[in-house]
């Protein structure tokens, strides 16, 4: 296995191994809660919290957790942190954000990103590295869903963070393409963004031709 600096451990999750655009995991929330940037940020924060706590705890306990029952142990650890987020969000966040996160907040428990990092990284690595890895993957996930949400919100409802991006005083108005806020728009935007990043990666990594 290649050796990485601590900074590299964080950075790989943001770009080279971005959960959504490169590894293509955790796609359900990337589509479901990206109707607006606000929801995406709330979801991103929740995922970062669960991912960082679960990864750190798994790394701390990795010598104690027996090989045969590791998956149930991971699930219990993840489930406990998800419940903490649920309780805090229910008390602190406005009801409309809670309503649009809906069942996708408890569904973080089956989000493949978190189980995948616990299994493939935290169960084998030290605490500090696991923490940084989780932070990187989490931030990468949040940036990715914010990008999807940004495109959908700007084009689909004509707003950014709930404020119209064409000032009301202007004589022109943007007519939102509301299909982007509905289910088909989510699939189309994510498909096109995935294609764009594939193309970009091909351009950046391909050897330059004379």
């Amino acid at each position, binding site marked *: 296995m290649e050796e990485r600096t601590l900074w590299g451990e964080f950075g790989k999750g943001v770009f080279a191994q971005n959960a959504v655009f490169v590894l293509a995991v955790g796609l359900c929330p990337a589509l479901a809660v990206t109707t607006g940037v606000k929801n995406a940020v709330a979801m991103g924060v929740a995922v970062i919290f669960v991912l960082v706590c679960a990864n750190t705890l798994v790394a701390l306990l990795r010598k104690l957790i027996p090989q045969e029952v590791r998956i149930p142990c991971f699930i219990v650890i993840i489930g406990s942190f998800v419940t903490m987020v649920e309780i805090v969000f229910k008390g602190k966040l406005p009801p409309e954000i809670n309503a649009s996160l809906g069942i996708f907040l408890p569904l973080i428990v089956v989000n493949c990103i978190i189980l995948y990092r616990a299994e493939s990284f935290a169960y084998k690595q030290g605490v500090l590295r696991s923490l940084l890895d989780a932070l990187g993957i989490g931030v990468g996930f949040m940036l990715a869903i914010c990008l999807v949400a940004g495109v959908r919100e700007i084009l689909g409802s004509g707003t950014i963070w709930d404020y119209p991006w064409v000032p009301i005083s202007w004589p022109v108005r943007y007519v939102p393409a509301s299909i982007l806020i509905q289910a088909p728009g989510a699939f189309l935007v994510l498909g096109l963004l995935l294609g764009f990043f594939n193309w970009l990666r*091909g351009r950046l990594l391909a050897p330059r031709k004379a």
Partner: protein
Amino acid sequence: MDVGQLLTIAVSAILVSNFVLARFLGLCPFIGVTQKTENALGMGAAVTFVMFLASFATFLLYRLVLLRYDLVLALKTPMFILVIASLVQLVELFMRAKLPALYQALGIYLPLITTNCAVMGVALLNTTDAPLAFRGMSIGAGLVAASWRGICAGLGFTLAMLLMSGVRERLARADVPPALRGVPIAFICTGLMAMAFLGFAGMV
């Protein structure tokens, strides 16, 4: 529980709020296992079966334990995922011992189902969703409704898987731009399919 209510649940779960195309649940197998029609059908059957069992078990747990002892907020998520994970293990053991033929066909999909969010999703929806709230029903009627919705949601999932595998078998021979090959074009096709399914909106 009359036939009309059951029909409403069926139409809603299969067509109007299709779990894949309208609710964004179960996308990993939808993208991962739809290269071939046989695989898509096998996965669909396995998921439908587990969704039925999971709906049944989690609804009972919710009504008899969580609601009665006021543990919904604190224990719902961890309890549900544990019940689903154990159910999948149980089904796998049972199938291997008693139904080897079926195990041969569906066995490889079973471990994947634990982390399939459609299964957890239907369990959560059965115990939260406002418009089709089963929580107000008597326990027997609620159990029937929840299990039936599990089956129908599974059928809707299978329908989406089948449609997608048909599309992808054609796509494999199509001339797709290199950057869009694989997952991106699959998502764009899904978007068009979801647009078609929007036509069912308002039926229920």
